[in-house]
């Protein structure tokens, strides 16, 4: 997959939807592309992480440990981002992610991510918008839950 195809894939991610092509190209060029075989682990739950992954092709399972054993809670496909929380704030991984099929990902290290953000504030603004949206959704969800409880 050439860099231009990677850029096309990044473009589909809402986080990067409004960002100039040349910036996306820089992101793609400076980050490492990694291949995983089915069953390979991208990262383990509870370990500290230092990079986020953008799926270019293939699928990945998000697995959470429960008292009754591991449970797959979601399966992610191309243009989805996984592990970004760990690079924004220093918290351990909240789940294990494994390759479901033959998987190509773009691995964006924490260091690189922050460098790109300081260099191009529009990406930072875009991320703020996405995070704010998520927060807003979570808050309204919480409000719903609380009102359900009150009812």
């Amino acid at each position, binding site marked *: *997959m*050439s*860099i*231009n195809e*990677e850029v096309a894939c990044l473009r589909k991610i809402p986080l990067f939807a409004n960002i100039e092509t*040349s*910036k996306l*190209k*820089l992101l793609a*060029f*400076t980050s*490492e*592309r*990694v*291949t*995983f*075989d089915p069953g*390979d682990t*991208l990262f383990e739950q509870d370990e500290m992480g230092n990079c986020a992954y953008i799926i270019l092709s293939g699928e990945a399972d998000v697995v959470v440990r429960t008292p009754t054993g591991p449970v797959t809670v979601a399966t992610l496909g191309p243009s989805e981002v996984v592990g970004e929380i760990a690079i924004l704030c220093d918290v351990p991984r909240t789940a294990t992610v494994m390759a479901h099929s033959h998987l*190509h990902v773009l691995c964006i290290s924490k260091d690189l991510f922050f*460098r790109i953000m300081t*260099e*191009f504030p529009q990406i930072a603004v875009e991320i703020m918008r996405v995070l704010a949206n998520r927060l807003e959704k979570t808050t309204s969800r919480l409000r719903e839950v609380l009102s359900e409880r009150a009812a």
Partner: protein
Amino acid sequence: MESSIFRFILRHSRRQQVLLLVITLASFPFLYASLELPKKIVNEAISGKNIPAEMFGVPLDQVRYLLILSGLFLALVVVNGWFKYQINTMKGRLGERMLRRLRYELYVRILRFPLPRFRKVSSGELIPMITAEVEPLGGFIGDAIALPVFQGGTLLVYLAFIFMQDPVLGAAAVSLYPFQGWLIPRLQRKVNQLGKQRVRTMRQISDRIGETVAGIGEVHTHDTSAWHKADLAHRLGDVYDIRFEIYQRKFFIKFLNNFINQLTPFFFYAIGGYLVIKGQLSFGALVAVLAAYKDLASPWKELLDWYQLKEDTRIKYEQVVEQFQVPDLLDDRLLEEDPAGDIRITGRLALDHVQFGEETGAKPLDDVSGEIELDRHTAVVAVGAGGEELAQIVARVLLPTAGRIRLNGEDYLCLPESVTGRRVAYVGSSPYLFSAPLFENLVYGLRHRPLRPDPDADPARRKRRTAEAQMSGNTDRDIRADWIDYEAAGCTGPEDLVERIRDVLRLVDLDADVYSFGLNRTVDPQRRPDVAARVLAAREAVTDLLTDPKMGQLVERFDPERFNTNATVAENLLFGTPVGSAFATDTLAENPYMLHVLDKTGLSERFLDAGRRVAETMLELFSGLPQGHEFFERFSFIGFAELPEYQAILAHAGKDGLDRLRPDERTRLMSLPFKVIPARHRLGLLDDKAIARLLEARRVFARDLPADLRGAVEFFDPRVYNAAATIQDNILFGKLVYGQAQVQVRVGRMMAKLVDDLQLRELIVEVGLDHPVGVGGSRLTSAQRQKAALARALLKNPDLLVLGDATSSLDSASEARVHAAIRKHRQGRGLLWVVHRAGHARSFDRVIVLNGGRVAEEGRSVELDKPGTLLHELMGAD
């Protein structure tokens, strides 16, 4: 050491000086004759007067006489030249020998400085003293005696001649000499003082430069470069002021001298002229006196110059030597004496009121008494200072300022270093490693005296060097001899020494580090065919391992028939490792042979076009970034400064087409594709057709390579060891595949297993011993430095091992391993360990607790570790 340069000269070169003087004087008649002969040729042979009728019984006519005299003149020219040549060579050699002697003596003094001296004097001051400051002395020493005697003699002869012509005029000629002789030294004195001041200031400057180099990290940490610049500028300003004043005074002295010298002819003309007019002096005599006076000027000037040089040199010598006149210099006997018999440091070491510290101020050690049993392990726990000092005193690195130490009743402080330096080992917290391979640093503690002569030495040359060294008072020990004391390390020769080193490395937990040094080193297969053969066997074994598809996808091997997408285009074309700069990747586009190959295979235009595309991408990606951004270094093919140039090239190419570019523009564009690693950069530059042509170019490159470039590349050949590549690359014989998760860890694991299976590890560790440690060991981590120093200490099998804070840089797991290993290794032998965590003292046989430099508690650790003791309290605090 002689306090004045003349004493130094007389003491060490009296005979040569006399010889020089005799030869100089012997040359004098010939010189005189060569001045006299031309007169004879003109007056007699050419003008035809006074021609002797015969010479040596041979009848003469005028022409024959002329030819004989001319021949004589030619002979005199040769003789004079020969004298001059001999005298100059002798002077030069004498000066050089004396300089060599002086430098050597000064260096030996440094070795004899008491350790506390080094707190007051820096290497920045010492180095220029021995190297630059004494340099002019050599030139002077040859002239020291011969010149004043010769010129003074000449002067006297001329003076005698003048006095014989006329005593009054003679008196007139020298009338001003006493005045000059009185005035000049007086003026010179101030210049001398300034000269001293200048030397002092220059020394401070070199000290400052040394400090800046040593503390460069601090300069950048604290933004103090401006302060340092101002400091240096200020000092340079001081030097300027001093120099300027010296010039003014020096040239004034010159002016005065010239004036006085011209004043004398004034007297001749005035008084002599008057006497001639009055008829009291013949005209001829006045002319003769004037001519003689003219001749007088030259030796007189030489003498004055010599005086100035002498003063200059005298001061330089005194100023250097006074820095090396240290009161409590170590006795030379301690360094040089080599007592017969095997003196061991065993039994008991009794400290009796040992004290260390400066006369005023706090003493790190005060009145320490006690016994150290040299077959047991003693821990020292120090509250406050004193621990390290005690360790160094016990190790005899430092001498106490007061008190005595006895070894089984004998004076321990009088033992020569040939005993203490071999039987006792000490490692402090920041040991020093020398800029040499690790191996040299490890065997450093085994090199006391030359033991076996150098088998390759040329005996004649060796003899000459030895004689020359002795003549300059230097040591005649041969540095090229084998100095390693294998027996002391418990070995018989070089072979089992390596084995023993490996054991010691394991003991100090350094073997894994040295193994990885080894993996990353190159080996000359001519010198080590055994290594090359076994590495090739390992390469073969890797081939088998990589048939497993799980592993096979991690490494892309070099295949002569296939393009390696994980290697650069340059590596693919060369299909080898460049040796030297001819085929360095950065300048490949300028290499005529490479361009020829590209042309021949029709790749030039493709390269140019690929270069354009790379440049476009780089400009698109990186032109928005500020200067100095780390992306340029890490990712860009084009530096920030070059971006505008490439922009211009692309604009030019866009307007006129790629084929209209200037040659330098073409070179710039064509240099880019060489650096591309297709699998990593994913720029989509190469299609299958391009790859086929590249493979063709690879074949042509190797086939047509001219003989003179044959040494500039080591080809990748599956069956041949690549001398320019590291051992790791030789085994792997390929590139790690980009984009495979954890490829380095997985391949590293595979390599480790392979190396163990083939029992290659020992060999690689041996190669790793050649790893250069850098200046002061700077290419090692501080933990590696400490481990290397421990290994160095253990290798010499000391009777007593003294450790300061020798493991402070190790991580705790490694520290625990090393502690346990050393304790076990030293079972039943002397060990004194200054522990920095009281808890470590628990397992030792005895403990000495120092508090404020005094012994607070001493005894067996089990007895001491009870409530109420200081040790117990300290252990609790851990």
